[in-house]
């Protein structure tokens, strides 16, 4: 299907730049007339993905670039997060399991991939000749 618009966003791998990507995604959602909660969800998934690249693929080392492609289709919005760092080991995708009554079981991390899978309609991860691409799509009812 043909896109009805697209934009590429690039930041250097520093946590201080992540809110800029996040703000941009929320602003784009608002320009597309999405409601506040949907805009927050899109920002959240992108921020989780970009933070993961910064922290895990580039182990918080500055000087690398994180690229986000946003593709608009008539029925959905697609985000591609690209990096050339360490690849994601699919075994890392975990369920979120804890007992709300037992404080010691509560997770303090490991919720990012869960959130992306829960909020997006489609998530997949591919590595080809050193380029890692996480693709996430959300269908839009407009």
């Amino acid at each position, binding site marked *: 299907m043909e896109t009805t618009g697209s934009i590429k966003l690039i930041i250097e791998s520093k946590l201080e730049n992540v809110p800029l990507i*996040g703000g941009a995604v929320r602003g784009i959602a608002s320009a597309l007339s999405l409601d*506040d909660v949907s805009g927050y969800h899109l920002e959240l998934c992108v*921020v989780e993905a970009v933070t993961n690249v910064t922290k895990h693929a580039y182990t918080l080392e500055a000087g690398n670039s994180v690229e986000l492609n946003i593709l608009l289709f008539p029925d959905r919005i697609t985000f591609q997060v690209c990096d050339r760092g360490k690849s994601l080991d699919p075994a890392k995708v975990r369920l*979120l399991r*804890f007992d709300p009554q037992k404080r010691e079981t509560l997770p303090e991390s490991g919720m990012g991939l869960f*959130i992306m899978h829960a909020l997006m309609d489609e998530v997949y991860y591919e590595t080809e000749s050193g380029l890692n691409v996480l693709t996430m799509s959300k269908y839009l009812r407009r």
Partner: protein
Amino acid sequence: MQLHQNKMGDVLIVRPLERRIDAATATEFKEKMSEWIGAGNRRIVLNLSEVDFIDSSGLGAIVSSLKKIGNDGDLVICSVRETVMSLFRLTRMNRVFDILSSEEEAIGALSRRL
């Protein structure tokens, strides 16, 4: 990350003055909370009225504060925006924390307990 704090009796009220609790600010949030808990604060209200973005790192920092308080105290949350509330629901953290609409109610809930 700027955190406004004040005390009402033995309840510490913490209100982040920034819009985001994310990977860039979570560590500082956690450290400051940890300091106050270390100084003996066991009943804490976290007022999220200014916050319109929390990610998994921010949520993790809040959970970490609750765990640090231990079982002889509590962390109660108030004034959560609809957006941020959706994250608590999605991760089922709304069943871990008492989430109240106003600061007064949150203080009340903590005072009735213990």
